[in-house]
C-alpha cells in the first residue's frame, strides 16, 4: 500500500458526506430533493435507481460539474462547492460514456491523467505499467484508443481513474451498454479494486446484481430522494424469507386491494404491471396461495420464491410508479 493510501486508511473522517443536498434546474425541475448520506473510508456504496431518479445529478454535484442548489457535500473533508479543486484532487470518475481521447494511445491517456492530477512522472510511469499489467492491457497500452475493443477501452478508463490513487472513486453506470461477457469481466475487475487499494467507491447503477455483488451499502433513489439506505442483506430481510408472485391479467390493482382488505397482503406488497408480489411474512406460502384462490382472484401463474434485490427495488420504486 502506498504512503498516499496509508494516510487515507488512518483518516477517520467520512470519505463522502452529503447533507441536505438539493438540485433544482432552471425551469423548476427538482432532480435531487434534499438527500443525506455518509460513506466510510474503504466502503463501496451504491446509488441505485431508475433513470431520472437523480443518481447522475448527485454524482455531478459530488464531482463538481453540477452546482448544488442547497445543502452540502464533502469528499475526504473538502466541500465540493467551497473548495472544488481540492475535492477533485482526492477523487476520480469513470463516466457512463467513454471519455478517452481516442486519437491518443492508452499510455498517453493515462499519462495525461497523471499529469493533471499532479503525479510525479516517475511514479506515474510505474503506476501505469502496474495498472496495465493488472488490467490485462500491457499488450495494447501503446496503441491508439480507437483501435481497442469496447472491453479494453472500458478497462482503460478504469485504469486511468486509478492512476491518481483517488481516495474516492466514482463509477457512474460503468457497465451500461456493454455486452454480457464484457460486463461480467468488468464486475470481476471492479470487485477486485477494493481488495487491491482500499479506496472508497461510489457506484451508480440500475443493475441490481451489480449493486448486490459489489456494494457494502445501497441507497435506493426515487424521484430525487433516497427511499431506502442499508446493507443489501438488511434490505432483503425487510421482505421476509419468501414471496408469492402472481400474474393477474384482469385488474391487478383491484386484486391487490382485495388481498390487502383480507389481510393476505400488507403495505409491502406491490404491483408492477400485471405482476403482484406479496411478501408472506411468517405465514406459510401455501396458505397464502390457498387464501388468494378462496378470494376468487384468477391468477394466470402463481410462484413462490426467495426475495431478491429486484423486489426491494420494485417495491420502493415500481409500486410508487404504478400508484
Amino acid at each position, binding site marked *: 500500500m502506498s504512503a498516499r493510501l496509508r494516510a487515507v486508511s488512518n483518516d477517520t473522517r467520512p470519505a463522502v458526506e452529503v447533507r441536505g443536498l438539493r438540485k433544482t434546474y432552471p425551469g423548476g425541475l427538482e432532480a435531487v430533493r434534499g438527500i443525506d448520506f455518509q460513506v466510510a473510508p474503504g466502503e463501496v456504496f451504491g446509488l441505485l435507481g431508475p433513470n431520472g431518479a437523480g443518481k447522475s445529478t448527485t454524482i455531478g454535484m459530488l464531482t463538481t460539474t453540477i452546482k448544488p442548489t442547497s445543502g452540502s457535500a464533502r469528499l475526504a473533508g473538502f466541500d465540493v462547492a467551497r473548495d472544488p479543486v481540492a475535492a*477533485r484532487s482526492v477523487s476520480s*470518475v469513470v463516466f457512463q460514456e467513454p471519455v478517452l481521447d481516442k486519437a491518443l494511445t492508452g499510455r498517453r491517456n493515462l499519462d495525461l491523467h497523471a*499529469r493533471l492530477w*499532479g*503525479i510525479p512522472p516517475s511514479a506515474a510511469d510505474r503506476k501505469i505499467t502496474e495498472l496495465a499489467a493488472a488490467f490485462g492491457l500491457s499488450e495494447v497500452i501503446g496503441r491508439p484508443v480507437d483501435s481497442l475493443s469496447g472491453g479494453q477501452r472500458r478497462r482503460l478508463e478504469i485504469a486511468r481513474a486509478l492512476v491518481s490513487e483517488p481516495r474516492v472513486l466514482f463509477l457512474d453506470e460503468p457497465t451500461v451498454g456493454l455486452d454480457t461477457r464484457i460486463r461480467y469481466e468488468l464486475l470481476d475487475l471492479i470487485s477486485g479494486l477494493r481488495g487491491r487499494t482500499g479506496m472508497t467507491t461510489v457506484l451508480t447503477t440500475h443493475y441490481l446484481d451489480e449493486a448486490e455483488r459489489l456494494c457494502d451499502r445501497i441507497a435506493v433513489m426515487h424521484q430525487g430522494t433516497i427511499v431506502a439506505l442499508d446493507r443489501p442483506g438488511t434490505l432483503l430481510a425487510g421482505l421476509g424469507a419468501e414471496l408469492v408472485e402472481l400474474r393477474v391479467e384482469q385488474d391487478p390493482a383491484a386484486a391487490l386491494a382485495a388481498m390487502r382488505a383480507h389481510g393476505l397482503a400488507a403495505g409491502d406488497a406491490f404491483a408492477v404491471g400485471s405482476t403482484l408480489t406479496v411478501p408472506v411474512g411468517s405465514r406459510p406460502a401455501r396458505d397464502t396461495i390457498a387464501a388468494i384462490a378462496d378470494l376468487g382472484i384468477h391468477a394466470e401463474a402463481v410462484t413462490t420464491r426467495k426475495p431478491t434485490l429486484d423486489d426491494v427495488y420494485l417495491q420502493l420504486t415500481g409500486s410508487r410508479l404504478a400508484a
Partner: protein
Amino acid sequence: MTAIPTAPAEAALTSPRPAARPHRLATWATLAGRRVMLSAHTPREVLAPLVTPLLFALVIAPALAKMIPHAGPGGADYSTFVIVGTVGLLIPLTCTFAGIGVIVDRASGARRELLAAPISRSLIVLGNMAVAITVSLLQVAALIAAGWLRGSHFHATPAGAGWFIGAVLTFTVFMYAVAEILANRIPTQEEYVGLTPVVAILPWFLAGSLFPITALPGWLASVARVLPTTHTLALLRYGVLNRGGAGLHDIWGISNTTADAALSLLVLAGWAVLITAASIRVFQRSAVS
C-alpha cells in the same frame, strides 16, 4: 511523561489533507500539449496549416499585384501590402478551426475528464489558446518568409517588429477567445462551421486587407474603424512596411503615428482582455450546470 493521544487531534479532523496538485504552469503546459497531440499527430495535420500562407505569399498576392502594378497604399508594392493583409485572414481562420476542438472535446466526452481534474478550469481555455497562438505564429512566419523569398520588400526595425509581433499576439488572443465563446455557445459542429465566413472572412474584407478603408463607403468605413482586424492590419503594416502608417492615420486621423499605433494596440488589448475574460466565463458556465 508525555501522554499518548488515543483520538485524532481536532485539527486533523477540521483540516483535511489535500492531495498533490500540479503547478498552474505545468497544468497549462499539459493542456496545451494535449491539444498539440490531438491536432498534430500526423504529418498532414502539421503541414496543412502552412498551405494557405504559402499559397497567398507565393501565388495570390503576386497575381493580384500583376493586376494592380502601381505601388500599394503607403508606398509599398501591392504584393507586399496584400501579404501583410493576409495575416488578418490567417489568424481568424486558425482560431476558428481551433474552436472545433472545443466542440469535439464536448461531443466526444473528453471534456468531462478535464472538468473532473483538480485544476483551474480557466486553464483549459488558456491551454487551447496557447496552441492557437503557436500555430498562428508559425503561419505568419511562413507567410512573411515566403513573401520575402518571392521578392516582397519588408522594412522592419526592432520597434517595428515589436509592433508587428504585439499585434499578431493580441489579435490571436482576441480571435481565439471569440472562437471559444462561439464553440461553447453553439451546439453542433455544422452550425459552428457555418459561422466561419461571418466571423473570419467578412471582417477581413472590410478591414483594409486588399484596399484602404477610406475606399469604402463612408458608413462602412466607420464600421471598419471599430473592427479589431482593421487595427491589427494597420499595426502590422506600420511595423514592417516602409511608410506603413497610412492605415493607422485612416483610423485615427492624428498626425503622430506612434500615438496612432499605441491607441490601436490599446484597443486591441482591450478587446483581447475583455473577450478572453468572457470566454472563460462562458466556458465555465457551459461546463457547470
